[in-house]
């Protein structure tokens, strides 16, 4: 039984194909269209999934869309009544997308696929059901508590529930406009980053600040109950009217207008980021305690999804609280993951198929669920373009490790593309974490992004405890933990910020540990543990680096520049390699050196192609 799940028309569109409960393929549309956060109908992702499954659309048992348009329309009308005389802007900006596409999603998908599976019908799941299903069904657990938190889906913004075997049940929810995701987005907006796309930047900025606005936020913006439920004080927000996330009252609360995008980041933004982060952590922990109290001590596992579940700092706090023995988070926790959840829900709960788990290994396949390219394809591509290359004999792990030790920055392209926002070693840029200059160099000369942003470490699973204060696997880079005390160097953040006149680049360049490039200013790191079983090539590269240098950690950042989707094809990878100051490109079993490559012709305007995120 093949089931296709689709998410589209809101944020990150994606498709996922499930066969008898096994995830065959899943990918975001942006990777194919090269439009970051592409929300259009995922025609290319769907085509890829069907090709990977070697099936035609009419062989699908069901096609499932991840959101219910009727409920969304109901909430929209409700919101119009709230806006009242201010509804004109809301209508102008958002009515058309609803009436032209979302309400006709079944026709649009039918036009795209030719036929909606064997029954030629579209099924829709509730948005938070899609998230909940994406968290529970691929998890290793037979039973688990479920928490989903995002901006909004139909009415719900937060849901708590329970999953057992092949069945999930939502027990309670919080409804629009009260939303933790929207609260966080309001701060993202006010601090000068893009809503939806810049939330992770706010999270990266938080450690630079102090939570001086924490009480203010709790007193004025959000009322949090002891069970983790909450409501926003709507008088400070404007998202209900579709004009902006916050209003002049919000600005007055924080001493003036919002920071303009790309302008200097000041202490205020750092403190705002730290403060709202602390609030998010508090709510998530309270929610986890609440669901634990509802379900009792027999439920030891927690699963999470929804955009807020990508907040790896909050996840780290939750991990350290030890409310549950085990936590599993859907790597594609945002809307893209809804495609997978919709398909899995249909297979397990709607059709009632049985589900087996081993309690240890998940069904996500390392989230390596996208396209891959054979060596023969890559060789043919390189030869057809006349790009000089060399064959990597024996996998070339030591050769790559030696290059890392020589401080080369390497684009690593191999295996199946990752599903979700994180590059996990198959579409990654890698470097030596011991270098004090590497963070600034990678940010400014490779990624062309803000200097304050941290980089993540990939560490051999068996060595994680040597470097970081965490003992468990974290293969999807979804938990933050601190660098071990014995590796830290003396570093006083407040003093450094004062001395630097809020110039974050000079702060970033200060050494904080013996792996400074992956140690954030508060000594934290967003960790990916790597085991041979999940990704043998990537594991062996890190292992070779360890044997060469004694360091079992490397830098891992996504293979793209700012505003560009992560690379999908060898062509995308080659172009990104040539447009940046990367030194080496590994394409499958082939290696390319920058100094041997001919320059790209007629490529002067490439930076205009990608809108800054």
């Amino acid at each position, binding site marked *: 039984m093949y089931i296709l799940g689709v998410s589209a028309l809101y944020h990150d569109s994606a498709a996922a194909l499930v066969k008898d409960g096994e995830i065959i393929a899943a990918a975001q549309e942006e990777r194919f269209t090269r439009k970051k956060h592409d929300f259009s109908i995922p025609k290319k992702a769907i085509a890829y999934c069907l090709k990977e499954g070697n099936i035609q659309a009419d062989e699908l048992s069901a096609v499932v869309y991840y959101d219910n348009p009727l409920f969304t329309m109901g909430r929209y*009308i409700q919101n119009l009544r709230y*806006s009242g005389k201010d509804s004109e802007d809301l209508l102008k*900006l958002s009515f058309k997308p609803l009436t032209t596409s979302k309400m006709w*999603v*079944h026709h649009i998908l039918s036009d795209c696929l030719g036929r909606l599976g064997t029954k030629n019908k*579209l*099924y829709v799941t509730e948005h938070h059901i899609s998230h909940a299903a994406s968290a529970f069904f691929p998890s290793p657990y037979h039973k688990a508590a479920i928490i989903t938190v995002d*901006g909004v889906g139909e009415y719900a913004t937060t849901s708590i529930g329970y999953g057992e075997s092949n069945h999930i049940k939502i027990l309670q929810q919080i409804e629009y406009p009260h939303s933790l995701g929207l609260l966080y987005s309001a701060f993202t907006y006010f601090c000068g980053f893009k*809503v939806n796309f810049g939330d992770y930047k706010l999270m990266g900025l938080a450690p630079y600040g102090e939570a001086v606005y924490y009480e203010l936020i709790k007193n004025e913006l959000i009322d949090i109950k002891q069970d983790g439920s909450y*409501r926003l004080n709507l008088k400070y927000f404007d998202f209900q009217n579709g004009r902006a996330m916050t209003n002049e009252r919000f600005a007055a609360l924080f001493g003036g207008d919002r920071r303009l995008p790309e302008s200097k980041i000041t202490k205020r933004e750092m403190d705002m980021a730290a403060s709202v982060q602390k609030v998010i952590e508090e709510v998530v922990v309270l929610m986890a305690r609440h669901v634990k109290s509802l379900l009792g001590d027999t439920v030891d596992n927690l699963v999470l999804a929804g955009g807020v579940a990508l907040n790896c700092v909050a996840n780290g706090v939750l991990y350290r609280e030890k409310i549950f023995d085990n936590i599993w988070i859907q790597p594609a926790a945002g809307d893209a993951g809804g495609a997978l959840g919709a398909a899995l829900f249909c297979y397990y709960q709607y059709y009632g198929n049985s589900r087996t788990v081993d309690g240890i290994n998940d069904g996500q396949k390392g989230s390596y669920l996208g396209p891959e390219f054979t060596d023969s394809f890559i060789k043919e591509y390189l030869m057809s373009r006349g790009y000089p290359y060399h064959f990597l004999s024996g996998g070339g792990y030591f050769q790559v490790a030696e290059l890392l030790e020589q401080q080369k920055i390497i684009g690593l392209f191999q295996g199946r593309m990752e599903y979700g926002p994180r590059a996990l070693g198959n579409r990654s840029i890698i470097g030596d974490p011991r270098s004090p200059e590497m963070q600034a160099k990678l940010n400014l000369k490779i990624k062309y992004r803000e200097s304050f942003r941290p980089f993540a470490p990939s560490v051999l699973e068996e060595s994680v405890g040597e470097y970081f204060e965490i003992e468990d696997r974290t293969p999807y880079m979804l938990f933050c933990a601190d660098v071990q005390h014995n590796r830290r160097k003396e570093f006083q953040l407040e003093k450094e910020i004062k001395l630097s006149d809020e110039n974050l680049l000079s702060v970033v360049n200060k050494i904080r540990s013996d792996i400074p490039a992956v140690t954030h200013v508060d000594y934290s790191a967003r960790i990916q543990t790597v085991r041979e079983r999940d990704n043998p090539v990537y594991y062996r590269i890190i292992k070779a680096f360890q044997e060469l240098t004694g360091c079992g950690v490397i830098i891992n950042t996504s293979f793209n520049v700012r505003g560009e989707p992560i690379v999908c094809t060898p062509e995308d990878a080659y172009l990104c390699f040539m447009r940046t100051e990367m030194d080496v490109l590994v394409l499958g079993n082939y290696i390319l050196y920058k100094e041997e490559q001919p320059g790209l012709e007629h490529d002067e305007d490439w930076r205009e192609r990608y809108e800054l995120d």
Partner: protein
Amino acid sequence: MNLTDERLMEEISVWAEKNEDKNIFSGISKDETSYYVDRDSEDTYMMEYAVKTMAELRTALEEYSGLSGQLDILQKIVYAICQDRYRDTIEMTEPNNEQTQQSDDQMKLPEFIYVF
């Protein structure tokens, strides 16, 4: 946006103003101990979505969108949705780059809007 769009939008906007309710969303309450809304039914977790005609759309919206009993606005919304599907079909048969670009721009939400 054509004249029909403008007229419909205006009518919906007038309806919204006339039916304005600033208390439609529950606010902060010191008396309540929890803001969670309990859910019992699993009936709507997943359903078939197959509206084809105006009548089917009206029935579906009445049942699931909370618009039952509000026939005036319901009719306008149904009309707007059906009209847009019709126009979309016309555009698909007559591809035009300029129109496609306009349509893309129209569909693209401003960066500061999250919800819709």
